[in-house]
Protein backbone atom coordinates (compact mmCIF):
# COMPACT_ATOMS: atom_id res chain seq x y z
CA UNK A 1 0.00 0.00 0.00
CA UNK A 2 2.80 2.34 1.00
CA UNK A 3 5.01 1.59 -2.01
CA UNK A 4 2.08 2.21 -4.31
CA UNK A 5 1.26 5.46 -2.53
CA UNK A 6 4.88 6.61 -2.79
CA UNK A 7 4.87 5.89 -6.50
CA UNK A 8 1.56 7.61 -7.06
CA UNK A 9 2.61 10.73 -5.21
CA UNK A 10 6.20 10.84 -6.54
CA UNK A 11 5.85 14.33 -8.01
CA UNK A 12 4.43 15.72 -4.80
CA UNK A 13 7.21 14.02 -2.85
CA UNK A 14 9.88 15.43 -5.13
CA UNK A 15 8.34 18.87 -4.81
CA UNK A 16 8.22 18.53 -1.02
CA UNK A 17 11.89 17.49 -0.83
CA UNK A 18 12.78 20.45 -3.01
CA UNK A 19 10.74 22.68 -0.74
CA UNK A 20 12.49 21.33 2.35
CA UNK A 21 15.89 21.94 0.75
CA UNK A 22 14.85 25.49 -0.11
CA UNK A 23 13.52 26.03 3.41
CA UNK A 24 16.81 24.79 4.87
CA UNK A 25 18.88 27.56 3.27
CA UNK A 26 16.48 30.33 4.32
CA UNK A 27 18.30 31.29 7.55
CA UNK A 28 21.50 31.90 5.57
CA UNK A 29 20.00 34.27 3.03
CA UNK A 30 17.18 36.12 4.76
CA UNK A 31 17.12 38.80 7.45
CA UNK A 32 16.45 37.74 11.06
CA UNK A 33 12.94 39.23 10.95
CA UNK A 34 12.07 37.14 7.92
CA UNK A 35 13.56 34.07 9.54
CA UNK A 36 11.18 34.70 12.43
CA UNK A 37 8.28 34.90 10.01
CA UNK A 38 9.48 31.60 8.55
CA UNK A 39 9.58 30.20 12.06
CA UNK A 40 5.94 31.21 12.58
CA UNK A 41 4.92 29.64 9.29
CA UNK A 42 6.65 26.38 10.18
CA UNK A 43 5.10 26.31 13.65
CA UNK A 44 1.67 27.04 12.21
CA UNK A 45 2.06 24.41 9.49
CA UNK A 46 3.08 21.83 12.09
CA UNK A 47 0.14 22.74 14.29
CA UNK A 48 -2.27 22.61 11.38
CA UNK A 49 -0.99 19.18 10.36
CA UNK A 50 -1.11 17.84 13.91
CA UNK A 51 -4.70 19.08 14.22
CA UNK A 52 -5.71 17.58 10.90
CA UNK A 53 -4.60 14.10 12.00
CA UNK A 54 -7.81 14.00 14.02
CA UNK A 55 -9.86 16.92 12.69
CA UNK A 56 -9.21 16.57 8.98
CA UNK A 57 -8.81 12.80 8.69
CA UNK A 58 -11.44 11.60 11.16
CA UNK A 59 -13.75 14.62 11.10
CA UNK A 60 -13.44 15.19 14.85
CA UNK A 61 -12.95 18.96 15.02
CA UNK A 62 -11.19 19.92 18.20
CA UNK A 63 -11.86 23.51 19.25
CA UNK A 64 -9.38 23.34 22.11
CA UNK A 65 -6.12 21.94 20.79
CA UNK A 66 -4.20 24.70 22.51
CA UNK A 67 -4.67 22.54 25.60
CA UNK A 68 -1.81 20.40 24.33
CA UNK A 69 0.44 23.32 23.41
CA UNK A 70 0.09 24.60 26.96
CA UNK A 71 0.32 21.21 28.62
CA UNK A 72 3.40 20.23 26.60
CA UNK A 73 5.10 23.54 27.29
CA UNK A 74 4.48 23.46 31.02
CA UNK A 75 5.20 19.76 31.43
CA UNK A 76 8.53 20.13 29.64
CA UNK A 77 9.42 23.34 31.46
CA UNK A 78 8.61 22.01 34.92
CA UNK A 79 10.43 18.75 34.14
CA UNK A 80 13.57 20.55 32.98
CA UNK A 81 13.60 23.04 35.85
CA UNK A 82 12.48 20.83 38.72
CA UNK A 83 13.33 17.23 37.86
CA UNK A 84 16.56 17.75 35.93
CA UNK A 85 17.65 20.95 37.63
CA UNK A 86 19.63 23.93 36.43
CA UNK A 87 22.95 22.15 36.97
CA UNK A 88 22.03 19.31 34.62
CA UNK A 89 20.65 21.75 32.06
CA UNK A 90 23.89 23.73 32.11
CA UNK A 91 26.20 20.76 31.70
CA UNK A 92 24.16 18.93 29.08
CA UNK A 93 21.55 21.26 27.61
CA UNK A 94 20.94 19.19 24.49
CA UNK A 95 20.10 15.99 26.39
CA UNK A 96 18.06 18.08 28.82
CA UNK A 97 16.03 19.60 26.00
CA UNK A 98 15.49 16.18 24.41
CA UNK A 99 14.29 14.75 27.72
CA UNK A 100 12.04 17.78 28.24
CA UNK A 101 10.59 17.28 24.77
CA UNK A 102 9.86 13.64 25.58
CA UNK A 103 8.32 14.62 28.91
CA UNK A 104 6.06 17.18 27.25
CA UNK A 105 4.96 14.73 24.58
CA UNK A 106 4.39 12.00 27.16
CA UNK A 107 2.29 14.33 29.34
CA UNK A 108 0.11 15.22 26.34
CA UNK A 109 -0.23 11.61 25.24
CA UNK A 110 -1.24 10.48 28.74
CA UNK A 111 -3.68 13.36 29.18
CA UNK A 112 -5.21 12.67 25.77
CA UNK A 113 -5.51 8.97 26.51
CA UNK A 114 -7.24 9.79 29.82
CA UNK A 115 -9.83 12.14 28.36
CA UNK A 116 -10.18 10.20 25.10
CA UNK A 117 -12.48 7.52 26.42
CA UNK A 118 -15.22 9.82 27.69
CA UNK A 119 -15.03 12.68 25.21
CA UNK A 120 -14.43 10.77 21.99
CA UNK A 121 -17.82 9.20 22.56
CA UNK A 122 -19.19 12.64 21.78
CA UNK A 123 -19.55 13.71 18.19
CA UNK A 124 -19.63 16.88 16.15
CA UNK A 125 -20.35 20.01 18.12
CA UNK A 126 -20.38 18.10 21.41
CA UNK A 127 -16.83 16.94 20.91
CA UNK A 128 -15.78 20.42 19.79
CA UNK A 129 -17.22 22.08 22.89
CA UNK A 130 -15.87 19.37 25.18
CA UNK A 131 -12.36 20.12 23.84
CA UNK A 132 -12.97 23.81 24.41
CA UNK A 133 -13.71 22.83 28.00
CA UNK A 134 -10.55 20.74 28.30
CA UNK A 135 -8.44 23.72 27.20
CA UNK A 136 -10.23 26.11 29.53
CA UNK A 137 -9.93 23.81 32.55
CA UNK A 138 -6.27 22.98 31.95
CA UNK A 139 -5.38 26.64 31.58
CA UNK A 140 -7.25 27.56 34.75
CA UNK A 141 -5.61 24.79 36.73
CA UNK A 142 -2.18 25.81 35.44
CA UNK A 143 -2.93 29.36 36.42
CA UNK A 144 -4.28 28.77 39.90
CA UNK A 145 -2.29 25.84 41.24
CA UNK A 146 0.88 27.36 42.56
CA UNK A 147 3.21 24.45 41.81
CA UNK A 148 2.62 24.88 38.07
CA UNK A 149 3.75 28.52 38.18
CA UNK A 150 1.28 29.47 35.47
CA UNK A 151 0.47 32.94 36.76
CA UNK A 152 4.00 33.67 37.99
CA UNK A 153 5.62 32.39 34.83
CA UNK A 154 8.35 29.89 34.18
CA UNK A 155 11.81 30.69 32.83
CA UNK A 156 12.96 27.89 30.55
CA UNK A 157 16.59 26.80 30.27
CA UNK A 158 18.40 27.94 27.13
CA UNK A 159 19.21 25.37 24.51
CA UNK A 160 22.56 25.19 22.70
CA UNK A 161 22.94 27.27 19.54
CA UNK A 162 25.62 25.27 17.65
CA UNK A 163 27.15 28.57 16.58
CA UNK A 164 23.88 29.64 14.92
CA UNK A 165 21.75 32.65 15.79
CA UNK A 166 18.88 31.90 18.17
CA UNK A 167 16.14 32.40 15.63
CA UNK A 168 17.92 30.06 13.20
CA UNK A 169 18.10 27.31 15.83
CA UNK A 170 14.36 27.42 16.44
CA UNK A 171 13.74 27.72 12.74
CA UNK A 172 15.54 24.42 12.16
CA UNK A 173 13.91 22.73 15.13
CA UNK A 174 10.48 23.72 13.85
CA UNK A 175 11.42 22.70 10.29
CA UNK A 176 12.44 19.24 11.50
CA UNK A 177 9.27 18.94 13.58
CA UNK A 178 7.04 20.03 10.70
CA UNK A 179 8.71 17.59 8.29
CA UNK A 180 8.36 14.72 10.78
CA UNK A 181 4.68 15.54 11.32
CA UNK A 182 4.15 15.78 7.56
CA UNK A 183 5.76 12.35 7.11
CA UNK A 184 3.57 10.88 9.86
CA UNK A 185 0.46 12.41 8.31
CA UNK A 186 1.44 11.01 4.90
CA UNK A 187 1.97 7.54 6.37
CA UNK A 188 -1.32 7.65 8.25
CA UNK A 189 -3.25 8.90 5.27
CA UNK A 190 -1.94 6.15 2.99
CA UNK A 191 -2.14 3.30 5.47
CA UNK A 192 -5.05 1.11 6.40
CA UNK A 193 -5.91 3.38 9.32
CA UNK A 194 -6.18 6.33 6.95
CA UNK A 195 -8.80 4.54 4.88
CA UNK A 196 -10.65 3.66 8.06
CA UNK A 197 -10.55 7.26 9.22
CA UNK A 198 -11.87 8.51 5.89
CA UNK A 199 -14.72 6.03 6.15
CA UNK A 200 -15.43 7.26 9.68
CA UNK A 201 -15.45 10.86 8.57
CA UNK A 202 -18.08 10.13 5.98
CA UNK A 203 -20.29 7.95 8.15
CA UNK A 204 -19.08 6.60 11.46
CA UNK A 205 -21.92 4.18 12.07
CA UNK A 206 -21.62 2.59 8.66
CA UNK A 207 -17.83 2.35 9.01
CA UNK A 208 -18.26 0.62 12.32
CA UNK A 209 -20.80 -1.76 10.88
CA UNK A 210 -18.36 -2.66 8.10
CA UNK A 211 -15.78 -3.67 10.68
CA UNK A 212 -13.63 -0.54 11.00
CA UNK A 213 -12.37 -0.46 14.61
CA UNK A 214 -13.54 3.15 14.98
CA UNK A 215 -12.94 3.38 18.72
CA UNK A 216 -9.32 2.26 18.48
CA UNK A 217 -8.61 4.41 15.41
CA UNK A 218 -9.93 7.64 16.83
CA UNK A 219 -8.24 7.18 20.19
CA UNK A 220 -4.94 6.44 18.40
CA UNK A 221 -5.25 9.57 16.28
CA UNK A 222 -6.27 11.72 19.24
CA UNK A 223 -3.25 10.60 21.27
CA UNK A 224 -0.91 10.99 18.29
CA UNK A 225 -2.29 14.43 17.47
CA UNK A 226 -1.99 15.52 21.11
CA UNK A 227 1.61 14.30 21.46
CA UNK A 228 2.71 16.04 18.24
CA UNK A 229 0.94 19.25 19.19
CA UNK A 230 2.67 18.96 22.56
CA UNK A 231 6.08 18.62 20.89
CA UNK A 232 5.46 21.84 18.96
CA UNK A 233 4.33 23.44 22.21
CA UNK A 234 7.64 22.51 23.85
CA UNK A 235 9.68 24.00 21.01
CA UNK A 236 7.50 27.11 20.92
CA UNK A 237 7.87 27.55 24.68
CA UNK A 238 11.67 27.35 24.41
CA UNK A 239 11.65 29.90 21.63
CA UNK A 240 9.76 32.25 23.94
CA UNK A 241 12.17 31.53 26.80
CA UNK A 242 9.66 32.57 29.44
CA UNK A 243 6.10 31.25 29.55
CA UNK A 244 2.94 32.09 31.46
CA UNK A 245 -0.49 30.51 31.22
CA UNK A 246 -1.60 33.26 28.87
CA UNK A 247 1.28 32.87 26.45
CA UNK A 248 0.83 29.16 25.73
CA UNK A 249 -2.84 28.43 26.45
CA UNK A 250 -4.07 30.77 23.73
CA UNK A 251 -7.59 30.52 22.37
CA UNK A 252 -6.40 31.99 19.09
CA UNK A 253 -4.05 28.99 18.63
CA UNK A 254 -7.03 26.66 18.84
CA UNK A 255 -8.87 28.75 16.34
CA UNK A 256 -5.92 29.21 14.01
CA UNK A 257 -5.30 25.49 13.69
CA UNK A 258 -8.79 25.22 12.23
CA UNK A 259 -8.37 28.33 10.11
CA UNK A 260 -5.16 27.06 8.44
CA UNK A 261 -6.90 23.84 7.49
CA UNK A 262 -10.08 25.53 6.33
CA UNK A 263 -8.17 28.08 4.31
CA UNK A 264 -5.85 25.57 2.69
CA UNK A 265 -8.36 22.76 2.31
CA UNK A 266 -9.38 20.39 5.04
CA UNK A 267 -8.06 16.84 5.04
CA UNK A 268 -5.27 17.59 2.55
CA UNK A 269 -1.57 17.61 3.40
CA UNK A 270 -0.60 20.83 1.58
CA UNK A 271 -3.64 22.64 2.98
CA UNK A 272 -2.12 23.50 6.37
CA UNK A 273 1.05 24.86 4.71
CA UNK A 274 -0.88 27.08 2.30
CA UNK A 275 -3.24 28.24 5.03
CA UNK A 276 -0.48 28.90 7.53
CA UNK A 277 1.68 30.76 5.01
CA UNK A 278 -1.17 33.02 3.92
CA UNK A 279 -2.40 33.70 7.44
CA UNK A 280 1.06 34.36 8.91
CA UNK A 281 2.14 36.59 6.04
CA UNK A 282 -1.15 38.45 6.25
CA UNK A 283 -1.22 38.96 10.00
CA UNK A 284 2.52 39.34 10.70
CA UNK A 285 3.76 41.16 7.65
CA UNK A 286 0.90 42.94 5.91
CA UNK A 287 -1.02 43.79 9.07
CA UNK A 288 2.01 43.74 11.37
CA UNK A 289 1.37 47.24 12.64
CA UNK A 290 -2.12 46.44 13.92
CA UNK A 291 -1.00 44.13 16.71
CA UNK A 292 -3.91 45.07 18.97
CA UNK A 293 -6.35 44.04 16.26
CA UNK A 294 -4.91 40.56 15.72
CA UNK A 295 -7.71 38.67 17.38
CA UNK A 296 -10.28 40.74 15.54
CA UNK A 297 -8.62 40.09 12.19
CA UNK A 298 -8.29 36.36 12.85
CA UNK A 299 -11.96 36.22 13.72
CA UNK A 300 -12.95 38.27 10.68
CA UNK A 301 -10.79 36.10 8.44
CA UNK A 302 -12.49 32.99 9.76
CA UNK A 303 -15.96 34.42 9.25
CA UNK A 304 -15.15 35.55 5.70
CA UNK A 305 -13.65 32.16 4.93
CA UNK A 306 -16.59 30.08 6.07
CA UNK A 307 -18.99 32.29 4.18
CA UNK A 308 -16.96 32.80 1.00
CA UNK A 309 -14.91 29.63 0.51
CA UNK A 310 -16.17 26.80 2.70
CA UNK A 311 -13.95 24.22 1.00
CA UNK A 312 -10.71 26.17 1.22
CA UNK A 313 -8.19 26.98 -1.48
CA UNK A 314 -7.26 23.38 -2.30
CA UNK A 315 -10.91 22.34 -2.27
CA UNK A 316 -11.81 25.22 -4.55
CA UNK A 317 -8.91 24.47 -6.92
CA UNK A 318 -9.82 20.79 -7.05
CA UNK A 319 -13.41 21.71 -7.84
CA UNK A 320 -12.38 24.09 -10.64
CA UNK A 321 -9.91 21.54 -12.05
CA UNK A 322 -12.53 18.81 -12.12
CA UNK A 323 -15.20 20.93 -13.72
CA UNK A 324 -12.63 22.15 -16.29
CA UNK A 325 -11.70 18.56 -17.12
CA UNK A 326 -15.33 17.56 -17.32
CA UNK A 327 -16.05 20.42 -19.68
CA UNK A 328 -13.07 19.47 -21.85
CA UNK A 329 -14.06 15.83 -22.09
CA UNK A 330 -17.68 16.75 -22.66
CA UNK A 331 -16.77 19.08 -25.52
CA UNK A 332 -16.99 17.44 -28.98
Amino acid at each position, binding site marked *: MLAEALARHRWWIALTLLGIAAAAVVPFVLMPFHVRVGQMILLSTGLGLAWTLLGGFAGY*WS*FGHTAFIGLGAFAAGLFEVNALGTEFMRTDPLLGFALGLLAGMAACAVAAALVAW*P*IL*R*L*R*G*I*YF*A*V*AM*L*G*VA*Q*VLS*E*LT*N*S*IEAFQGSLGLVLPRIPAFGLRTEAVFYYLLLIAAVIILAIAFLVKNARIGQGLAAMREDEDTARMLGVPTERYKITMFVLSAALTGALGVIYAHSLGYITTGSVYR*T*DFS*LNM*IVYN*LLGGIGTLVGPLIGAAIMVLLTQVVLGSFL*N*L*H*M*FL*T*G*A*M*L*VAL*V*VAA*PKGIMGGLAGTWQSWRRRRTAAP
Partner: protein
Amino acid sequence: MLAVQTIADGLVLGGLYALAAVGFSLIFGVLGVVNLSHGAIVMMGAYLTWFVWHTTGLDPLLAIPPVMLVLFAFGYVYQRGLIQLAVDRSSLLASMLVTFGVALMLRNLLVLVFSPDFKSITPGYAFNYLRLGEVTIDLVRISALAASLALLGALAWVLNRTRIGRVIRATAQQELAARLCGVNARHVYGMTFGVSAAFAGASGAILGIVLPFAPPDEANWTLNAFVVVVLGGVGSPSGALLGGLVLGLISTATSQLIGPAFPNAMMFLILVLMLMVRPAGLLGNAFAASR
Protein backbone atom coordinates in the same frame (compact mmCIF):
# COMPACT_ATOMS: atom_id res chain seq x y z
CA MET B 1 -24.63 28.18 59.14
CA LEU B 2 -21.85 28.18 56.61
CA ALA B 3 -23.77 25.60 54.62
CA VAL B 4 -26.89 27.81 54.48
CA GLN B 5 -24.78 30.78 53.43
CA THR B 6 -23.18 28.67 50.70
CA ILE B 7 -26.59 27.59 49.47
CA ALA B 8 -27.85 31.17 49.45
CA ASP B 9 -24.82 32.35 47.46
CA GLY B 10 -25.17 29.37 45.17
CA LEU B 11 -28.78 30.21 44.40
CA VAL B 12 -27.95 33.83 43.56
CA LEU B 13 -25.17 32.71 41.24
CA GLY B 14 -27.46 29.99 39.87
CA GLY B 15 -30.14 32.51 38.94
CA LEU B 16 -27.53 34.43 37.02
CA TYR B 17 -26.24 31.31 35.27
CA ALA B 18 -29.79 30.38 34.34
CA LEU B 19 -30.52 33.78 32.85
CA ALA B 20 -27.21 33.84 31.00
CA ALA B 21 -27.85 30.38 29.58
CA VAL B 22 -31.49 30.63 28.58
CA GLY B 23 -30.77 32.43 25.33
CA PHE B 24 -28.06 29.95 24.38
CA SER B 25 -30.50 27.16 25.09
CA LEU B 26 -33.20 28.80 22.98
CA ILE B 27 -30.94 29.17 19.94
CA PHE B 28 -29.69 25.64 20.32
CA GLY B 29 -33.21 24.31 20.61
CA VAL B 30 -34.76 26.32 17.79
CA LEU B 31 -31.94 26.83 15.26
CA GLY B 32 -29.68 23.93 16.22
CA VAL B 33 -26.77 26.38 16.23
CA VAL B 34 -24.22 26.34 19.04
CA ASN B 35 -23.60 30.02 19.53
CA LEU B 36 -20.02 30.31 20.77
CA SER B 37 -20.34 34.09 20.79
CA HIS B 38 -23.06 33.90 23.43
CA GLY B 39 -20.63 34.72 26.24
CA ALA B 40 -19.36 37.69 24.24
CA ILE B 41 -22.93 38.99 23.95
CA VAL B 42 -23.30 38.61 27.71
CA MET B 43 -20.15 40.71 28.10
CA MET B 44 -21.56 43.26 25.64
CA GLY B 45 -24.59 43.57 27.90
CA ALA B 46 -22.36 44.07 30.93
CA TYR B 47 -20.28 46.73 29.19
CA LEU B 48 -23.30 48.55 27.76
CA THR B 49 -24.86 48.69 31.21
CA TRP B 50 -21.58 49.83 32.71
CA PHE B 51 -21.36 52.54 30.07
CA VAL B 52 -24.92 53.77 30.67
CA TRP B 53 -24.43 53.71 34.45
CA HIS B 54 -21.03 55.36 34.23
CA THR B 55 -22.10 58.22 31.95
CA THR B 56 -25.66 58.95 33.10
CA GLY B 57 -25.75 57.46 36.60
CA LEU B 58 -28.90 55.52 35.70
CA ASP B 59 -29.60 52.59 38.02
CA PRO B 60 -28.17 49.46 36.34
CA LEU B 61 -31.41 47.53 36.81
CA LEU B 62 -33.30 50.32 35.02
CA ALA B 63 -30.72 50.18 32.24
CA ILE B 64 -31.72 46.61 31.45
CA PRO B 65 -34.66 47.38 29.08
CA PRO B 66 -32.70 49.69 26.73
CA VAL B 67 -29.73 47.28 26.76
CA MET B 68 -32.07 44.42 25.87
CA LEU B 69 -33.54 46.45 23.04
CA VAL B 70 -30.13 47.28 21.56
CA LEU B 71 -28.97 43.69 21.81
CA PHE B 72 -32.21 42.38 20.35
CA ALA B 73 -31.51 44.44 17.26
CA PHE B 74 -27.91 43.23 17.23
CA GLY B 75 -28.99 39.60 17.52
CA TYR B 76 -31.57 39.89 14.77
CA VAL B 77 -29.13 41.43 12.31
CA TYR B 78 -26.36 39.03 13.31
CA GLN B 79 -28.55 36.01 12.60
CA ARG B 80 -30.11 37.24 9.38
CA GLY B 81 -26.90 38.70 8.03
CA LEU B 82 -24.27 36.16 9.04
CA ILE B 83 -25.37 32.97 10.78
CA GLN B 84 -28.06 32.16 8.22
CA LEU B 85 -25.55 32.79 5.44
CA ALA B 86 -23.06 30.36 6.99
CA VAL B 87 -25.71 27.70 7.55
CA ASP B 88 -26.92 28.05 3.96
CA ARG B 89 -23.47 28.02 2.41
CA SER B 90 -21.89 25.21 4.39
CA SER B 91 -22.98 23.43 7.55
CA LEU B 92 -24.03 23.76 11.16
CA LEU B 93 -20.48 22.98 12.26
CA ALA B 94 -19.28 25.81 10.03
CA SER B 95 -21.84 28.16 11.54
CA MET B 96 -20.35 27.28 14.91
CA LEU B 97 -16.96 28.33 13.56
CA VAL B 98 -18.46 31.64 12.47
CA THR B 99 -19.74 32.28 15.97
CA PHE B 100 -16.28 31.36 17.32
CA GLY B 101 -14.77 33.96 15.02
CA VAL B 102 -17.32 36.56 16.03
CA ALA B 103 -16.61 35.83 19.70
CA LEU B 104 -12.93 36.64 19.12
CA MET B 105 -13.83 39.82 17.23
CA LEU B 106 -16.18 41.01 19.96
CA ARG B 107 -13.66 40.22 22.69
CA ASN B 108 -11.01 42.17 20.84
CA LEU B 109 -13.36 45.10 20.30
CA LEU B 110 -14.33 45.18 23.97
CA VAL B 111 -10.67 45.25 24.93
CA LEU B 112 -10.02 48.08 22.49
CA VAL B 113 -13.01 50.16 23.56
CA PHE B 114 -13.15 49.50 27.29
CA SER B 115 -9.54 48.37 28.05
CA PRO B 116 -8.68 44.88 29.31
CA ASP B 117 -9.04 45.89 32.99
CA PHE B 118 -11.71 44.59 35.30
CA LYS B 119 -14.79 46.79 35.61
CA SER B 120 -17.59 46.66 38.13
CA ILE B 121 -20.94 48.39 38.49
CA THR B 122 -21.61 49.67 41.99
CA PRO B 123 -25.00 51.36 42.42
CA GLY B 124 -25.73 53.42 45.57
CA TYR B 125 -27.18 50.51 47.49
CA ALA B 126 -24.21 48.27 46.76
CA PHE B 127 -23.18 48.00 50.38
CA ASN B 128 -26.58 47.51 52.01
CA TYR B 129 -27.42 44.01 53.08
CA LEU B 130 -30.20 41.95 54.52
CA ARG B 131 -29.80 39.68 57.52
CA LEU B 132 -31.98 36.61 57.87
CA GLY B 133 -30.99 34.73 60.99
CA GLU B 134 -27.27 34.35 60.54
CA VAL B 135 -27.26 34.49 56.76
CA THR B 136 -26.39 37.81 55.19
CA ILE B 137 -27.16 38.65 51.60
CA ASP B 138 -26.29 41.92 49.93
CA LEU B 139 -29.19 43.88 48.59
CA VAL B 140 -27.51 43.77 45.18
CA ARG B 141 -27.55 40.02 45.14
CA ILE B 142 -31.18 39.86 46.19
CA SER B 143 -32.20 42.27 43.47
CA ALA B 144 -30.04 40.30 41.02
CA LEU B 145 -31.78 37.05 41.89
CA ALA B 146 -35.20 38.70 41.76
CA ALA B 147 -34.45 40.29 38.38
CA SER B 148 -33.16 36.98 37.00
CA LEU B 149 -36.26 35.12 38.11
CA ALA B 150 -38.57 37.84 36.83
CA LEU B 151 -36.91 37.84 33.42
CA LEU B 152 -36.96 34.05 33.17
CA GLY B 153 -40.65 34.14 34.09
CA ALA B 154 -41.27 36.77 31.43
CA LEU B 155 -39.55 34.66 28.80
CA ALA B 156 -41.53 31.58 29.81
CA TRP B 157 -44.69 33.66 29.49
CA VAL B 158 -43.68 34.94 26.05
CA LEU B 159 -42.86 31.44 24.83
CA ASN B 160 -45.98 29.79 26.19
CA ARG B 161 -48.66 32.44 25.99
CA THR B 162 -48.01 34.83 23.13
CA ARG B 163 -48.31 34.46 19.39
CA ILE B 164 -44.64 34.93 18.66
CA GLY B 165 -43.81 32.35 21.34
CA ARG B 166 -46.13 29.85 19.72
CA VAL B 167 -44.58 30.50 16.34
CA ILE B 168 -41.09 30.02 17.73
CA ARG B 169 -42.03 26.72 19.33
CA ALA B 170 -43.73 25.55 16.17
CA THR B 171 -40.68 26.37 14.05
CA ALA B 172 -38.43 24.53 16.51
CA GLN B 173 -40.56 21.41 16.27
CA GLN B 174 -41.06 21.24 12.52
CA GLU B 175 -39.65 23.95 10.32
CA LEU B 176 -41.34 22.68 7.19
CA ALA B 177 -44.76 22.27 8.77
CA ALA B 178 -44.52 25.72 10.31
CA ARG B 179 -43.65 27.21 6.93
CA LEU B 180 -46.58 25.44 5.32
CA CYS B 181 -48.81 27.12 7.91
CA GLY B 182 -47.57 30.48 6.73
CA VAL B 183 -44.73 31.08 9.18
CA ASN B 184 -41.83 33.10 7.86
CA ALA B 185 -39.18 30.77 9.31
CA ARG B 186 -36.21 33.03 8.60
CA HIS B 187 -37.87 35.91 10.37
CA VAL B 188 -38.60 33.62 13.30
CA TYR B 189 -34.97 32.53 13.44
CA GLY B 190 -33.90 36.15 13.49
CA MET B 191 -36.42 36.96 16.22
CA THR B 192 -35.26 33.96 18.28
CA PHE B 193 -31.68 35.09 17.99
CA GLY B 194 -32.70 38.60 18.94
CA VAL B 195 -34.58 37.38 22.02
CA SER B 196 -31.59 35.25 22.95
CA ALA B 197 -29.19 38.17 22.62
CA ALA B 198 -31.53 40.42 24.60
CA PHE B 199 -31.62 37.99 27.50
CA ALA B 200 -27.87 37.50 27.30
CA GLY B 201 -27.57 41.28 27.58
CA ALA B 202 -29.88 41.38 30.58
CA SER B 203 -27.83 38.71 32.31
CA GLY B 204 -24.73 40.75 31.50
CA ALA B 205 -26.24 43.77 33.21
CA ILE B 206 -27.05 41.73 36.31
CA LEU B 207 -23.68 40.00 36.35
CA GLY B 208 -22.09 43.43 36.23
CA ILE B 209 -23.61 44.45 39.56
CA VAL B 210 -22.77 41.13 41.23
CA LEU B 211 -19.26 40.41 39.97
CA PRO B 212 -16.36 42.35 38.47
CA PHE B 213 -15.92 41.51 34.78
CA ALA B 214 -13.34 41.68 31.96
CA PRO B 215 -13.54 40.84 28.23
CA PRO B 216 -11.81 37.41 28.43
CA ASP B 217 -14.61 36.20 30.77
CA GLU B 218 -16.70 35.61 27.68
CA ALA B 219 -15.26 32.12 27.20
CA ASN B 220 -16.38 31.15 30.68
CA TRP B 221 -19.89 32.41 30.12
CA THR B 222 -20.21 30.45 26.90
CA LEU B 223 -19.01 27.30 28.62
CA ASN B 224 -21.31 27.92 31.59
CA ALA B 225 -24.24 28.25 29.24
CA PHE B 226 -23.32 24.99 27.56
CA VAL B 227 -23.04 23.17 30.89
CA VAL B 228 -26.38 24.61 32.04
CA VAL B 229 -28.04 23.38 28.86
CA VAL B 230 -26.51 19.93 29.21
CA LEU B 231 -27.69 19.76 32.82
CA GLY B 232 -31.17 21.12 32.31
CA GLY B 233 -32.07 20.20 28.76
CA VAL B 234 -32.50 22.20 25.60
CA GLY B 235 -34.83 25.00 24.72
CA SER B 236 -36.89 25.71 27.81
CA PRO B 237 -36.64 28.39 30.52
CA SER B 238 -37.49 25.83 33.22
CA GLY B 239 -34.64 23.59 32.06
CA ALA B 240 -32.26 26.53 32.09
CA LEU B 241 -33.44 27.50 35.57
CA LEU B 242 -32.92 24.01 36.93
CA GLY B 243 -29.52 23.64 35.24
CA GLY B 244 -28.47 27.11 36.34
CA LEU B 245 -29.38 26.59 39.98
CA VAL B 246 -27.65 23.19 40.08
CA LEU B 247 -24.57 24.71 38.48
CA GLY B 248 -24.59 27.67 40.88
CA LEU B 249 -24.78 25.37 43.89
CA ILE B 250 -22.04 23.09 42.55
CA SER B 251 -19.82 26.03 41.78
CA THR B 252 -20.12 27.73 45.18
CA ALA B 253 -19.87 24.43 47.03
CA THR B 254 -16.72 23.53 45.09
CA SER B 255 -14.97 26.80 45.81
CA GLN B 256 -16.03 26.53 49.45
CA LEU B 257 -15.06 22.92 50.05
CA ILE B 258 -12.23 22.19 47.61
CA GLY B 259 -10.72 25.52 46.67
CA PRO B 260 -11.38 28.66 44.64
CA ALA B 261 -9.35 27.29 41.71
CA PHE B 262 -11.62 24.36 41.00
CA PRO B 263 -15.21 25.39 40.15
CA ASN B 264 -14.56 25.23 36.42
CA ALA B 265 -12.75 21.91 36.62
CA MET B 266 -15.64 20.49 38.65
CA MET B 267 -18.15 21.93 36.21
CA PHE B 268 -16.34 20.30 33.34
CA LEU B 269 -16.23 16.96 35.13
CA ILE B 270 -19.97 17.17 35.63
CA LEU B 271 -20.48 18.13 32.00
CA VAL B 272 -18.60 15.06 30.81
CA LEU B 273 -20.37 12.80 33.30
CA MET B 274 -23.75 14.15 32.26
CA LEU B 275 -23.06 13.72 28.56
CA MET B 276 -22.05 10.14 29.20
CA VAL B 277 -24.65 9.06 31.72
CA ARG B 278 -27.70 11.12 30.87
CA PRO B 279 -27.22 12.99 27.60
CA ALA B 280 -30.88 14.04 27.62
CA GLY B 281 -30.35 16.38 30.57
CA LEU B 282 -32.03 16.20 33.96
CA LEU B 283 -35.45 17.04 32.58
CA GLY B 284 -34.81 14.73 29.68
CA ASN B 285 -35.27 16.18 26.22
CA ALA B 286 -33.39 16.38 22.99
CA PHE B 287 -29.80 15.46 23.60
CA ALA B 288 -30.07 12.25 21.66
CA ALA B 289 -28.04 13.83 18.86
CA SER B 290 -24.91 13.96 20.99
CA ARG B 291 -23.83 10.45 20.09
